[in-house]
């Protein structure tokens, strides 16, 4: 047969195996979607929501823009390998199409220099030859950086790289081998047929014809075998992310989300993790405590392999749900929800455990706003008192829902994998709010806020008190005066990274004080360590994390450290002699008296 040599067999078989295994896995996962996910998918499968996905696939799967924004060196490394390889295949396919004038087998594109044994016959062919060499060089530069990262990750801006399993290491070496082998194979062919470009021909000219004809077959065979190894290992290793992320982006765009149990969608997310390790440096448990085996990258890996049951439980528990890793993850994997899924309590999570709440009555709050302080705010009464002062100052009638008895919002249960129990509390609170007829819900605790905003299906607006106060000030209803106070602001995890509220608290603080910048703020703010998400670390360890956050806040030398969460306030209060106050308290201190 023309255009065939036995050495292409490993490549051909490997690529068929890759296709079959991936198809099998993807079909299986799609069948594991839960009802709601299936319905959403069917409803939107041909909708135009799909169009923006194409752009995102290009940007993230090939160009790796999000990684580049965080760390350009890493970004270059990922881009040169992914985009470079993609172009090698794409341009190679066009080149061989033109060159073979239709006598085309798909492997010819991969091994073109072997099958096309003549020097470039015209300008077009010459340009293609040079271009292919340039692309190969581009990929090789990425492989070189990957090698540098393996030896010394600090050079690429990472403190700690992922610790890989044996399989992941094996496939990494096979990936690294592919491009040097291609270079050598093409070079010896260039010696024989003078069909190389600026790179391969130059190297090819170093060989004598005898040596080259002796080496040609072994090199091409090795190249083919290496490709085969890479393809066959791919579905079982981290490189499965190459194809899976494409699907994930599509599914997300048509509206699929994580739910409370492990579904097929979760499987797509798990396999989209490239184990890049960017979540490790972000994690306070690593950064401040030196714990190195619980980070998202490892949780996802263990969940995907499902073989280390004990490890999954252990790693799953030890996490603050601080969202720092989720913020950092270039694939935007829903890490916080996957963490929750890993904590599913199964039989322990019973239905109807709060019968005692049945007798709790609602309140007629028509024409009022409902105020939900939250359990934690009851331990920081300064916050709830300030809020009541503010309501009175603007003449807003309110109903303090949990003034003397508080039903929890349910999020702490949810975070620990008690889905049924959390749902029961949500139902009760929803009942109370809906039947009260209140027109708006305001809460002081970012945890409750997240809960009401994202997990409840309320038809009235839900505001965190910083949003509410900001609205009052902007509308001119609340008159405040600007003091000389210098403040730094701590973005609570759940309010900032969790709900994206960064501006409102800052605007309020600007109105009543002088806001100072800190090194780690907004998306990059540090966790106070007290987050309810973690039940494993000790008080001493919490303190270490808190101190790191405090150092950041006290560095600019503020008069007051401002927070917007009762938990953070409590955490910081115990750790510093500086003043720690909630935004609401600072506002109350600076009310215009005669207003």
């Amino acid at each position, binding site marked *: 047969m023309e255009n065939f040599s036995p050495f292409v067999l490993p490549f051909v078989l490997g690529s068929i195996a890759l296709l079959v295994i991936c198809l099998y896995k993807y079909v299986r996962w799609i069948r594991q979607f839960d009802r709601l996910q299936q319905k959403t998918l069917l409803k939107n499968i041909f909708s135009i929501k799909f169009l923006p996905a194409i752009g995102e696939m290009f940007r993230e799967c090939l160009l790796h823009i999000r990684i580049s924004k965080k760390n350009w060196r890493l970004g270059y490394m990922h881009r040169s390998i992914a985009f470079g390889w993609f172009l090698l295949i794409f341009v190679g396919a066009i080149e061989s199409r033109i060159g073979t004038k239709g006598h085309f087998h798909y492997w010819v594109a991969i091994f073109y220099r072997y099958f096309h044994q003549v020097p470039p016959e015209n300008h077009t062919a010459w340009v293609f030859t040079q271009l292919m060499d340039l692309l190969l060089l581009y990929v090789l530069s990425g492989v070189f950086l990957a090698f540098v990262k393996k030896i010394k990750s600090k050079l690429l801006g990472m403190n700690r790289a992922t610790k890989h399993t044996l399989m992941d290491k094996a496939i990494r070496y096979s990936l690294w081998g592919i491009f040097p082998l291609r270079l050598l194979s093409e070079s010896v062919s260039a010696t024989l047929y003078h069909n190389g470009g600026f790179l391969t021909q130059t190297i090819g000219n170093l060989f004598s014809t005898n040596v080259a004809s002796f080496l040609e077959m072994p090199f091409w065979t090795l190249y083919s075998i290496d490709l085969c190894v890479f393809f066959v290992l791919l579905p079982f290793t981290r490189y499965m992310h190459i194809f899976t992320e494409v699907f994930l982006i599509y599914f997300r765009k048509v509206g699929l989300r994580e739910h409370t149990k492990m579904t097929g969608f979760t499987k797509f997310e798990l396999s989209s993790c490239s184990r890049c390790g960017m979540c490790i440096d972000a994690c306070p448990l690593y950064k401040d405590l030196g714990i190195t085996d619980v980070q998202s990258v490892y949780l996802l890996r263990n969940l995907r392999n499902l073989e280390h049951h004990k490890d999954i439980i252990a790693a799953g528990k030890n996490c603050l749900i601080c969202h720092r890793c989720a913020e950092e993850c270039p694939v935007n994997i829903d890490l916080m929800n996957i963490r929750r899924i890993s904590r599913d309590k199964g039989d322990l999570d019973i239905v109807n*455990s709060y019968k005692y709440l049945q007798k709790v009555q609602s309140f007629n709050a028509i024409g009022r706003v409902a105020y939900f302080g939250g359990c934690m705010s009851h*331990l920081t009464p300064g916050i709830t008192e300030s809020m009541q002062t503010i309501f009175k100052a603007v003449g807003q009638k309110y109903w303090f829902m949990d003034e003397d008895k508080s039903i929890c919002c*349910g999020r702490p249960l949810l975070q620990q994998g008690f889905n049924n129990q959390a749902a029961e509390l949500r139902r009760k609170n929803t009942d109370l709010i809906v039947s009260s007829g209140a027109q708006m819900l305001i809460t002081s605790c970012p945890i409750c806020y997240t809960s009401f905003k994202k997990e409840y299906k309320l038809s009235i607006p839900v505001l965190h008190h910083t949003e509410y106060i900001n609205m009052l000030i902007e509308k001119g209803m609340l008159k405040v005066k600007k003091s000389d106070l210098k403040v730094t602001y701590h973005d609570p995890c759940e309010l900032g990274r969790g709900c994206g509220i960064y501006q409102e608290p800052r605007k309020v603080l600007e109105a009543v004080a002088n806001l100072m910048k800190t090194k780690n703020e907004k998306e990059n703010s540090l966790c106070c360590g007290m987050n309810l998400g973690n039940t494993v670390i000790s008080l001493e360890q919490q303190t270490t994390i808190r101190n790191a956050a405090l150092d950041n806040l006290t560095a600019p030398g503020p008069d007051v450290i401002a927070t917007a969460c009762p938990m953070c306030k409590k955490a910081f209060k115990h750790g510093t002699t500086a003043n720690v106050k909630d935004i609401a308290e600072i506002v109350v201190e600076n009310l215009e008296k005669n207003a």
Partner: protein
Amino acid sequence: MADFGFSIAKTRSVKLSDTDMSKYRQLLELVPSFKRCISCGGCTASCSARQFTDFNIRKTHCYFRRGQYDKLEQELQKCMLCGKCTLVCPRGVNLRSLIINMRQILTNTNEIIG
């Protein structure tokens, strides 16, 4: 027996020699901070669930400590895991972890995945 309108109270002493303390030991391993508990009752005083029902978290963990595991699981189901107890505990006992682990040990279940 004739009914005199009163009865003799059952003894409340705990025979340590007959008590199965293995569960308690297991708990201490999982939640070492529980060793520091001084039974002050701060947790109960702050408890959100207690405002609605007679759930008593201090009593519950005291029973557990004495190896009296009867009906504790049903009691613990009333907890909302809100974390107020953990925040007020003067001895830094990780009560939320304690509660989850007590329930897990009592029902002998592990988290499930998959």
